């Protein structure tokens, strides 16, 4: 099973009763896997509107005595952190509360690169970092136990390579955990008037947990009693170290794999470092263990004669994703071994081969209505002489930054409309540009409402486009409160009604399939002073195809060779970048790719020659 499936299985074995989550790569599949079996296992699970609400709701369950789990991606924990740094003081009650935070080193599917472990330090809550699929499963019951015993939320940290890779896992028994009835809410669920005393209590808890971690069996040392070189690693990096030590063939080396990454079991670490000449830290993203253990070594007086190496000393790269190659290079560096040089003749052949490669850039799918909207934005920008700033947001439509730079900014969930709140006030300082903010439907509900209220209240001059495809497309089509089609027992919340209730100066509803009307709607809205909102009804073609939609009954898209200007124009393929069309260099004109084309007809309105048409049949 994958790391994420292992976390889900661990949740079943831990007897979890509640799962609250918001989708985000690489964490999504944990909740998906729990949802598949939730009903049969008597678990309540939901896609919450955002991670903060998810964590707050999970705390409610835990306070009432039900074990709860809250999987989220790194950026989700940023959203939930406001609550986390209150919850740590008041405690998580007697149910048990586990947050699984999945970091994405290198930002394969993220807008940033961050190390979420610092939240455990900031909140003084325990942090566990499993290193394998087996540990991913086994850690969840341990995390629940720690949380229940000490009434403290526990963070389990994963990274993309653990979450999204798979290996063999030996299963344990499912815990059919019973809970006390009637449910009773824990007491003292607030920190005023003496939050500092709650802080004191929290630090006492964390000291006790540090003592327990001294003998935690997940922490493993392998090697001779007094190694010359000691590696300290956590998470998937433990595997990289195993392999790198084998490749470099280091004599008299030991490795300490720390699963209890916070609080650090200082006694264990101090004893293990002992008289080692060199200590190398290998961990994902930031020097978390390296800083913690470095500081502890001074306070607790261990490792005085050892040289500590890692990201702070430049031996390990301090950004990007770790791997075996980087670990090998670090080991060679520490040991003063020359890097192995490859055969020069071979290298030049590889270089020659590399020259042939062309990049395969990310792009909108065939028929994706986001492409239409950005095309429309570009047309409006041309008409405004280029004076149009677009503040973007998180979702598939983030690809707008690559689409002829249609979008200028892209940060956190909801930041598009937030940033536009600022830009929309800058006319008084001489900003000679109209401002558009773009967000998707799921993003709108997640984080855009406060900024939209602010824009209305402060009379910001901006146009807000909501690209509403009725699904959380980027992460695999999860339903959200605004989705048209809801599961039974759930009530739809209308995005349009929320928008209208805020009473922007203009509200328009448009159809993103139709480019000409989208262009004129956007053009009209940006010309008007004040706050305009356009809800553009959009379609996710992937979701459409997944639900069995076939386009064969629609008329085919054909190109009239007489009308097409050929090489002179090429707007449809080179500028609009239609994926359903390909350039045929022999015919010197575009041809339809029948197996890709969704027959949406967007390209028809893009062709200035009216050479693209629907066939009669």
């Amino acid at each position, binding site marked *: 099973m994958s790391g994420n499936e292992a976390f889900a299985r661990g949740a079943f074995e831990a007897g979890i009763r509640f799962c609250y989550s918001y989708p985000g790569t690489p964490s999504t599949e944990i909740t998906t896997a729990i949802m598949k079996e939730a009903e049969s296992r008597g678990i309540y699970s939901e896609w919450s509107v955002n991670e903060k609400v998810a964590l707050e709701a999970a705390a409610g369950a835990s306070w009432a005595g039900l074990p709860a789990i809250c999987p989220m991606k790194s950026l989700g924990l940023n959203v939930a952190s406001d609550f986390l740094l209150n919850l740590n003081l008041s405690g998580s009650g007697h149910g048990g509360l586990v947050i699984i935070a999945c970091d994405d080193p290198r930002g394969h599917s993220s807008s940033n690169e961050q190390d979420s472990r610092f939240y455990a330090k900031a909140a003084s809550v325990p942090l566990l970092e499993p290193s394998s699929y087996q540990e991913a499963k086994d850690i969840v019951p341990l995390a629940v136990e720690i949380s229940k015993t000490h009434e403290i939320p526990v963070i389990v940290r994963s990274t993309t390579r653990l979450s999204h*890779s798979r*290996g063999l896992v030996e299963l344990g028994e499912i815990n059919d955990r019973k809970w006390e009835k009637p449910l009773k809410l824990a007491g003292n669920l607030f920190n005023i008037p003496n939050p500092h005393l709650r802080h004191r209590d929290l630090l006492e808890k964390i000291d006790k947990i540090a003592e327990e971690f001294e003998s935690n069996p997940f922490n493993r040392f392998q090697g001779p009693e007094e190694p010359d070189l000691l590696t300290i690693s956590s998470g998937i990096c433990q595997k990289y170290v195993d392999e790198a030590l084998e490749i470099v063939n280091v004599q008299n080396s030991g490795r300490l794999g720390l699963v209890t990454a916070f609080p650090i079991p200082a006694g264990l670490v101090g004893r293990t470092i002992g008289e080692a000449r060199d200590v190398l830290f290998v961990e994902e993203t930031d020097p978390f263990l390296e800083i913690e253990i470095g500081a502890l070594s001074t306070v607790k007086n261990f490792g005085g004669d050892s040289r500590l190496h890692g990201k702070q000393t430049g031996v390990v790269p301090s950004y990007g994703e770790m791997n075996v190659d980087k670990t090998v290079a670090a080991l060679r560096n520490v040991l003063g071994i020359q890097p192995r040089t490859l055969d020069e003749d071979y290298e030049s052949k590889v270089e020659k081969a590399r020259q*042939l490669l062309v990049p395969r850039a990310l792009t909108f799918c065939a028929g994706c209505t986001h492409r239409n909207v950005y095309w429309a934005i570009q047309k409006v920008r041309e008409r405004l002489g280029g004076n149009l700033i677009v503040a973007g947001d998180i979702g*598939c439509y983030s690809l707008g930054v690559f689409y002829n730079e249609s979008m200028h900014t892209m940060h956190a969930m909801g930041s598009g409309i937030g940033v536009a709140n600022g830009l929309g006030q800058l006319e008084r300082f001489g900003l000679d540009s109209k401002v558009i903010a773009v967000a998707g439907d799921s993003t709108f509900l997640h984080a855009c409402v406060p900024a939209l209220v602010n824009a209305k209240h402060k009379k910001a001059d901006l146009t807000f486009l909501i690209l509403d495809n009725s699904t959380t497309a*980027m992460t695999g089509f999860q339903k959200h409160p605004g989705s048209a089609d809801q599961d039974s027992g759930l009530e739809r919340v209308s995005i349009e009604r929320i928008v209208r209730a805020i009473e922007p100066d203009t509200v328009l509803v448009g159809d993103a399939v139709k480019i000409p009307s989208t262009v004129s709607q956007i053009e009209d809205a940006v010309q008007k002073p004040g706050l305009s909102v356009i809800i553009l009804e959009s379609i996710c073609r992937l979701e459409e195809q997944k639900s069995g939609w076939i386009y064969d009954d629609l008329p085919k898209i054909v190109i009239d060779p007489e009308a097409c200007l050929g090489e002179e124009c*090429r707007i449809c393929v080179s500028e609009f970048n239609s994926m359903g069309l390909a350039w045929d260099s022999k015919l010197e004109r575009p041809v339809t790719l029948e197996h890709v084309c969704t027959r949406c007809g967007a390209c028809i309105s893009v062709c200035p020659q009216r050479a693209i048409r629907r066939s009669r049949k």
Partner: protein
Amino acid sequence: MKSSFDIVVAGVGGQGNLVCGRILAEGAVRRNLRPVVGDTFGASRRGGAVLTHLRIGEFDMGPLIPRNQADLILGLEPLETLRAAVKFGRQDTVVIFSELKVDTADTLGGKTEYPDIDKMTEALESISGVVFRLDPKASLDKIGSSRVLNSYMIGALAGSGKTPLNPSELRGLVGETLKPKKTNISAFDAGLKCVSELMKSKGV
């Protein structure tokens, strides 16, 4: 001495890359070996390249194959095969690839040219061990589906005899995992046959 047999499956989104990795991993389990599979997910799948790393050993390896460590590259698409070979291949890597190209957004639009497949084959031969270039088009047309390329390629891998996996077990797994069973088994058999013939002609 390497302690694992490392396979890279290289392709683009929608080619059944991930399922391919899973079938090969299950094949390793049948041999009492421990497979670890690393997939690429998320934004990388919106038209981008997809790589599956499969590491077969007696212990769990890390999910990523180190540079120049692949024993075999299974290429579902020529350009992505070369990209994988440049990064993960070495002098004796076995490369088995389909010559059916999948254009990039830029090559479709004619902004850049898709690299010449003969030149890419030459480059693969210059940096790898044995290279099997397959033309599945006729077989897939005959079977009547282009959606079974992954089964065809698993058949080719099985036929090469270059992995610790057992061909008849892989054939069984393709039938159990992929629907429709008959079409996928036909594709597997065609891939296996194609590689066997190439091996004869190459004398390997």
